């Protein structure tokens, strides 16, 4: 068993119910895609699995740790086995790529090694190997603020590869990448999970990317699980039902919905007012 959520509910301090009665279980090595409209609770679900948020109801067990009886020391031990990939890579801009990648093992290293690596990176070969897999080995000693958004996202993935977790959680890992790179990245994550027998849970915005690559699809809607099916059994009506709140079209890679950003909208309004 990799994780088991039993009737998990999550109510935020302001009273917003993010999750209710979620039952979800995964065996070791499974690869699961979470899909659903924005605000459905995909990120909350990943946060519970990643121990960032404790469920307010129900029982969550992750990698044989019983979440409701956590002690701080145990949580730390558990967390070293969980690798998270975030929508925007949480890496300081002035850090060097090599340091950012090595930071994946801070929870596993002895304190002296973590301290020394701030001055001289102690596992350059390991960092290089992880970066090679995301095609960034040449950026090993570059500073993170010299990278493009897509490159930085791949550094974040390299960090998780270097961490070698048993459970990989990815929250919209490719929404900032162009379609070709997105596909390659998803395949890399799947290959990594497969090679090491790790469990992979990824929330994805693009339905085609999910169904084309993952064996198991979980549809999330309004804080609960709408369906939980093998990819081959997911039908178009089912998807339309899932995305009913977002209109008639399904979000796919080929034509991602484009939203006018606020700045651009303002600019347009200014131009309209001037002329």
């Amino acid at each position: 068993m990799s994780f088991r959520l039993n009737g998990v509910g999550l109510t935020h301090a302001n009273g917003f119910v993010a999750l209710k009665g979620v039952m979800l279980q995964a065996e070791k090595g499974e690869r699961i895609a979470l899909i659903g409209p924005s605000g459905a609770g995909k990120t909350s679900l990943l946060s519970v699995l990643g121990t960032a948020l404790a469920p307010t109801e129900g029982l969550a067990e992750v990698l044989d740790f019983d979440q409701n009886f956590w002690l701080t020391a145990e949580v730390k031990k558990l967390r070293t086995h969980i690798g998270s990939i975030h929508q925007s890579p949480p890496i300081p801009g002035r850090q060097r790529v090599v340091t950012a990648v090595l930071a994946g093992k801070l929870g596993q290293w002895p304190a002296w090694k973590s301290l020394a690596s701030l001055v001289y990176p102690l596992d350059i070969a390991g960092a290089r190997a992880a970066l090679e897999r995301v095609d960034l080995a040449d950026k090993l000693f570059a500073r993170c603020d010299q990278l493009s958004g897509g490159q930085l996202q791949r550094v974040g993935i390299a960090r998780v590869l270097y961490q070698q977790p048993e459970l990989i959680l990815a929250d919209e890992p490719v929404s900032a990448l162009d379609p070709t790179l997105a596909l390659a990245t998803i395949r890399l994550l799947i290959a990594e999970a497969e090679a090491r027998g790790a469990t992979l849970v990824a929330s994805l915005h693009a339905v085609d990317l999910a169904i084309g690559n993952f064996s198991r699809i979980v549809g999330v809607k309004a804080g609960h699980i709408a369906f939980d099916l093998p990819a081959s059994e997911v039908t178009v009506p089912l998807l339309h039902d899932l995305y009913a709140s977002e209109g008639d079209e399904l979000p796919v890679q080929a034509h991602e919905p484009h939203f006018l950003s606020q700045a651009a909208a303002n600019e347009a309004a200014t131009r309209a007012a001037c002329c």
Partner: protein
Amino acid sequence: MSRIDRDPAARSRLIGALAMLVILWPLFQAAEVKPGVLFDPGNLKVIGNFLAGFLPPETGNEFLGYLAKATLETLAIATAGMALAFLIAVPMGYLASGAGREKATLNPVTRSLLTILRGIPELVWALIFVRVFGLGPAAGVLALGLTYGGMLAKVYAEILESVDAAPARALRHNGADRPLAILYGLIPQASKELASYTVYRWECAIRASVVMGFVGAGGLGQLMDQAMKMLNGGEAATILLAFMVLVFAADGFSGWLRRALDTPPANRASPFGWRSGGLGLALVVSIVASFSYLEIGLKSLLTLGPAFDSVVVEAARSIGEFVAGFFPPDLSAEWLAKVGKGIWETLAISVVGTLLAAVAGLLLALPKWRAPFSFLLNTLRSVPELVWATITALAVGLGPFAGALALALHTAGVLGRLYAEALDNAPPAPGQALRLAGAPGGFAFLYGTLPGAAPQLIAYTLYRWEMNIRMAAILGFVGAGGLGQLLYFELSLFHHAQASTVIIAMLLLSIAVDQASAWLRRAMR
């Protein structure tokens, strides 16, 4: 290890660290850093007895009367000094600024005059004016007015230059004069920053006027000086408390004023409401009250009775002689070497003090320890460096180490607060992500949070160091080494030619610091 797996930055890091050591070692030597002295039994006894004397603070009626009078005097010096500074700053800033000019001309004469005004520390001006006008608040007001006038003018000019120039240019092309173009085109953009900086300077003026008492320019500082010289701990404690209350109150008031500047104007013909009207009235009243409280009347300078003439002529002659005594400055090789040593010592004090402060400030700013120590930070910060120097001089004896410690104490308070703000503003996501990957809190901070905040921390530290070099130059007035000690001796001995060299050295140091920090900021960008 294969050749490819070597960190290319390692060599330059090693060289950098070695260079640091090579530079810092002699500086620590020059600052006479001897931590052992802090724990010397004899010194411990002196400072222990003195600090024990702090309790209970003096609360006798007679003393409290003196204290109230001195506090009022300090406030009045600050307010009157700021009024004078404003009068100097507005025309000078207008002349020096390139704002609203068709062709950007930097008025070199005004600019260099401003550099001289603010390059010489207010305490040195005060020391000189005390000799001209005698002991009393007039020297303090003049000194504040000149230095702060120079600073305000420079900053006003720069603020006006930094806002969008297009509105003023358009007005000028439509035939408006430069003053009107500035008033209608630039002031609306810059008014908040101008007002906010002026209020901030007033806050600084209160601190400065406290300090100027140490050279006999009246106010709380003079009282403190007397209490310290008599080792009267009880009185010193009460005065310190009064300092803190004053500084906190000024801090709070200026914060409130700056927030009030954010309110949008009322929806009527005159944008000024009861608050601006009331404040304006209060401002005028407090300036008039300050001057009359300090008994510096323009009248006494203007109404010249017949019997007065000879006195005035006599005074003018003695001032002239006094000023002439400063020229030519003593440029003998022997004296220059001594001044050079003073500059080196001043630099050493500032570097050591700032480094110690940065370490202490960072520790106190860490989220883990911030809560219990924020009061300590505020206390450290509210006591001016010069006052700390009188206390550290007791603890480690006269000399540069006392100065470095005093700088470190005050600066630790300032930097601690700035660091805490910077750490709060640093992006939280990287540290949080590392914690979720199992990193211990300390390392999540070192790898995730600190890199995000580092540029800000370094910028704050450099900025404080810049201020500390200037401060280190005058700490010597209470015996804490550096150029100040040299100047104080020479002025006490009426060696004006030698004093003049020291003042020029201070001025050059200040200009060099300006240039160096501008260069550093560009290099860091």
